């Protein structure tokens, strides 16, 4: 039963993509087809999750897969061809070179029969369920949102060629590749899906075909191909020296055999590139040029999550060795630096991008610690981040469609202008960093794990990073709640499908906050039990969970209580204090010539302290050097 579902989940999105690709005509038919396809995927994912949870076991399938292997090889050649086509068309030959190197290596391995080592090719456990739920539900909600969004997008940006069927098809290919990625337990299979996501993201980022889009898409491609090259090298080493290609076996060897640290390091390197850690962070920032659903998909449900997924899988093999040190150092450093860089950004999407990289850094650091508490925190972070980040991206996109700007300064007073969207955004921001909500719980556990593992450097990164994170989110929050008098409500042109997606995610966010202990005890803890082969103590005591629930209730009850308390007291509303020169509407004042002047309030961005100009280059150099040194140490130490 499970096997059929797994095959369905992998293949169905690809077929759906094909179908959507050939539905060139926009209209209700395509719209409802897309909704239907999404509904089917969500239903399948939930169905799969429930049956797996009920059976409660981990499954592994497919020992003999010669035919599929050949097909995958053909697929890899196809991908290489695609890369070649674009590389030559845009004269970026280095990309072709990278592609040839890894595809050549893989072809050689496969044709000489070195990859036929048996073992299972598909596996399903609790982490797979979590990933599938994220990909299926969040991913599909983004697709639903994209339907309405792309229409507005093209009416705003008439200069871009309409290729919507191509766009939707790519979204579904992405989902399919992600499903394949999380189900594969064989490195060669994993690699194949890994490459599909790289190429897919390249195509999605370059959707607009502007010069900037093309440049950024090639940057994303070469960085991910570099990671892919590391991946291919890891496979070669595993196949030739360790004679196994099963992920689980490699990880197990990693905890026992010193030389196995080499493929682990290489795989971790691949994970770092894909999750856009510090020297490679620029590809994710560049991905902003694409339409919002792309960013949402890349940042929340797919792509970058593939990177941290692999790192979390590798976690036991990263515990207390140099490969782990490499991952934690890069992760912690990225967390801190990007949270500082985010302060100086006023473009909402850019802030979100930096915050994504920063959070991924934290997850990466958790994975690198490799202790069960840390991995617990990492998985929980990943879940919360997926939901709240996609919510944030989509609401920013919706605001941009209405107001024509995605600058945070222009979101000043959104609570009056677009109350519903502002509210959704507040839920998203609260989910990203506020106390009783999701991310903070995981940060808490992460902090505990860092202290327990005695990594002072990480503790320092975390405490300072938390402070800077607080700064840039609260700043944004403050802009949203500013109440302008006499400001008009804007006409909300957000479409029904977009609302459906936004509300579903906001509800999901709140539900997750309330039910995270359940998620933890039914999904994460059993998985960790399997991973570390022992029963684990509770990470957050039930008393504290009750207290947090209490806080959550307090936040919900507070507005109602305040309303009831002040219901008989009529507050006198007066103008704001501007030295007595307020002209009466709180937005203009009388200057010394007796003329009215508009008042402009801006947030602090502290360009001179935290700007890209000041921080980006040093941190890139530092992280590159650190990565190279630590990789050489990790690999060289093992040889």
């Amino acid at each position, binding site marked *: 039963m499970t096997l059929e579902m797994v095959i369905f989940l992998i293949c169905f999105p690809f077929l759906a993509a094909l179908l959507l690709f050939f539905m060139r005509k926009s209209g209700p038919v395509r719209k409802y087809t897309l909704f239907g396809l999404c509904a089917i995927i969500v239903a399948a994912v939930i169905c799969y999750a429930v049956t797996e949870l009920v059976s409660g076991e981990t499954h592994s399938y497919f020992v003999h897969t010669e035919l599929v292997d050949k097909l995958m090889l053909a697929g890899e050649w196809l991908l290489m061809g695609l890369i070649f086509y674009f590389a030559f068309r845009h004269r970026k030959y280095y990309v072709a070179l990278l592609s040839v190197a890894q595809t050549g290596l893989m072809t050689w391995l496969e044709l000489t029969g070195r990859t036929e080592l048996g073992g299972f090719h598909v596996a399903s456990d609790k982490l797979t369920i979590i990933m599938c739920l994220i990909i299926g539900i969040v991913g599909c909600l983004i697709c639903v949102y994209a339907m309405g969004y792309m229409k507005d997008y093209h009416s705003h940006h008439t200069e871009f060629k309409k290729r919507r069927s191509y766009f939707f098809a790519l979204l579904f290919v992405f989902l399919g590749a992600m499903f394949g990625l999380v189900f594969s337990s064989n490195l060669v299979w994993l690699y194949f899906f890994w490459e599909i996501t790289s190429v897919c993201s390249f195509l999605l980022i370059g959707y607009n075909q502007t010069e900037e889009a093309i440049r950024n898409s090639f940057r994303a491609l070469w960085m991910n191909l570099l990671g892919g090259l590391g991946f291919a090298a890891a496979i070669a080493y595993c196949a030739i020296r360790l004679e196994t290609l099963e992920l689980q076996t490699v990880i197990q060897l990693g905890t026992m055999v010193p030389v196995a640290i080499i493929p682990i390091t290489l795989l971790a390197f691949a994970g770092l590139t894909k999750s856009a850690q510090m020297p490679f962070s620029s590809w994710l920032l560049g991905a902003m040029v694409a339409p919002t659903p792309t960013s949402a998909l890349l940042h929340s449900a797919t792509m970058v999550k593939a990177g941290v997924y692999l790192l979390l899988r590798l976690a036991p093999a990263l515990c207390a060795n140099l490969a782990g040190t490499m991952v934690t150092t890069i992760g912690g450093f990225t967390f801190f630096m990007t949270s500082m860089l985010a302060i100086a950004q006023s473009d909402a999407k850019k802030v979100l991008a930096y915050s994504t990289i920063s959070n991924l850094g934290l997850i990466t650091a958790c994975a690198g610690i490799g202790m069960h508490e840390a991995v617990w925190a990492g998985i929980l972070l990943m879940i919360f981040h997926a939901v709240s980040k996609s919510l944030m991206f989509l609401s920013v996109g919706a605001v941009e469609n209405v107001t024509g700007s995605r600058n945070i300064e222009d979101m000043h007073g959104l609570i009056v202008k677009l109350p519903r969207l502002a509210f959704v955004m507040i839920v998203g921001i609260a989910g990203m960093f506020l106390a009783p909500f999701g991310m903070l719980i995981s940060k808490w556990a992460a902090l505990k794990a860092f202290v327990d593992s005695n990594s002072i450097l990480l503790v320092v990164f975390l405490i300072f990073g938390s402070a800077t994170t607080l700064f840039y989110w609260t700043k944004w929050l403050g802009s949203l709640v500013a109440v302008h008098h006499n400001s008009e409500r804007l006409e909300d042109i957000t479409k029904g499908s977009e609302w459906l997606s936004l509300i579903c995610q906001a509800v999901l966010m709140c539900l997750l906050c309330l039910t995270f202990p359940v998620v933890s005890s039914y999904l994460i803890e059993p998985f960790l039990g399997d991973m570390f082969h022992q029963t684990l103590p509770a990470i957050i005591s039930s008393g504290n969970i009750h207290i947090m629930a209490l806080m959550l209730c307090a936040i919900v009850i507070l507005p109602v209580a305040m309303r009831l308390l002040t219901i008989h007291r009529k507050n*006198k509303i*007066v*103008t704001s*204090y501007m*030295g*007595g*020169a*307020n002209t009466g509407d709180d937005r203009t004042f*009388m200057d010394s010539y*007796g003329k009215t002047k508009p008042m402009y309030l801006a947030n602090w961005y502290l360009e001179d302290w935290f700007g890209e100009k000041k921080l980006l280059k040093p941190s890139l150099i530092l992280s590159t050097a650190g990565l190279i040194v630590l990789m050489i140490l990790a690999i060289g130490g093992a040889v």
Partner: protein
Amino acid sequence: MKVSKSPWLMHYDGSSCNGCDIEVLACLTPVYDVERFGVMNTGNPKHADIFLITGGINAQNAPVVKQLYSQMPNPKVVVAVGVCACNGGIFKECYNILGGVDTVLPVDIYVPGCAARPEAIIDGVVRAVALLDEKKKALSQEQVSSKEA
């Protein structure tokens, strides 16, 4: 407990020659120390109970003074410090002067002098404080009667 035990004041310089202002600030110094009576100089109409104005009212500051007064929560009193604030003083006949503070606001206490001496200012403030209690009483009676109605 009385409202008058905590009078917070806001000091506004109209078109004063700054003589009275120096004397107002002198009240805060160790020699006179108005904080003995709980007086605080807030500089913010929304926190203030006493509006203390020095200097006369001119065309430009008339709306400002009115606005500041409107932003103060009830009960509140206005103290005009110095002869200029009382009736325009030496500047009375100037082209731009409207007159004393009472041309735009209902002044409760007039403190004469050019410049007003700190003792006189403190006396004025203390009288204003006593007036605050009365105003508060009137205000709560008003509220009671409006509720009954």
